[in-house]
């Protein structure tokens, strides 16, 4: 499973709709200080459901929306979407059916519904508005935050998984008290 597309619109410095295509292997992101590289990492965290303002380096939801500059007005909303590609949909679906057992009871659950259709790709989306409201989407359909978490969990991206690692890595791994470090391992287990 891999990250195929990332689309930013109005997210922090990405006032213009910007699309990233990622292949397998290693993609480098380079550029001058303050150009927006870490903002891309923030967008990945955010669209995956990050709820912590400090992890996103902001104080409130509004701070995630392009605040404007001397020559460009601020925006009213932001949207980020991420397309994930799953090359082994049948395997996922089989595991899924096995896990949920009863194939009738959960058929109104959008995530289970979606996974049963064996999608080879899924688009996760998130929007935020100046009034602080957040909306979540799966393949364009409005869902709840917990549905996003559930889909990610089933595709190997649980809530605290190491999908985005910043300079804080060093402190996290080495300055944590030994007991706090255990949390990192419990994620991996």
């Amino acid at each position, binding site marked *: 499973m891999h990250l195929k597309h990332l689309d930013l619109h109005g997210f922090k410095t990405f006032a213009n709709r910007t699309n990233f295509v990622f292949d397998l292997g290693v993609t*480098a992101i*380079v550029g001058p200080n*303050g150009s*927006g*590289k870490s903002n891309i990492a923030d967008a990945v965290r955010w669209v995956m459901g990050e709820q912590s303002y400090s992890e996103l380096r902001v104080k409130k939801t509004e701070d995630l929306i392009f605040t404007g500059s001397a020559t460009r007005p601020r925006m009213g909303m932001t949207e980020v979407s991420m397309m994930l590609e799953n090359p082994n949909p049948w395997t996922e679906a089989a595991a899924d059916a096995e896990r949920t057992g009863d194939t009738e009871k959960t058929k109104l659950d959008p995530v289970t519904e979606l996974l049963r259709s064996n999608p080879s790709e899924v688009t996760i989306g998130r929007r935020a508005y100046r009034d602080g409201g957040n909306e979540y989407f799966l393949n364009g359909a409005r869902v709840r935050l917990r549905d996003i978490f559930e889909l990610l969990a089933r595709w190997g991206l649980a809530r605290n998984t190491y999908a985005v690692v910043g300079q804080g890595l060093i402190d996290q791994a080495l300055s944590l008290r030994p007991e706090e470090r255990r949390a990192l391992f419990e994620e991996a287990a």
Partner: protein
Amino acid sequence: MRRKFQETFKAINVEFTKFFAILFDGGTARLELTNPEDLTQTGIDVIAKPPGKRAAHLAMLSGGERALTATALLFAILKVSPTPFCVLDEVDAMLDEANVGRFRDALKTLTAGTQFIVITHNRTTMESADAVYGITMNEDGVSQAISLRLESTNG
């Protein structure tokens, strides 16, 4: 659950020792449970000994040695329990050129299990990538992205 933690811990420990030796081109390191009797309460200690040196408190390690040790631990976790993709934001900032080279080589060994997006200021890291996006800021304070395909070395 407890057994899963125990097995995972052992596996990560093995990989941590390996990656440390690769990244430091020598030396030894390991993880230790502070309380092996109680896996729900235990802490995890990190013991790191760069080549030619004696094991010491983590605080005594240099800035670059700490970054490299933390990287060895991250790589060990990714080896045992790969995440489908991983965004690394300037984790190579404190490394000298020799260590950046070993970081890049070790990263390559993980690409089969994990897709990497590496934010970096380092030329070596950038040149070894399969693809590169350049980000710039225009005069309106707006970010622009451009795909920079590298010729030669990555053919």
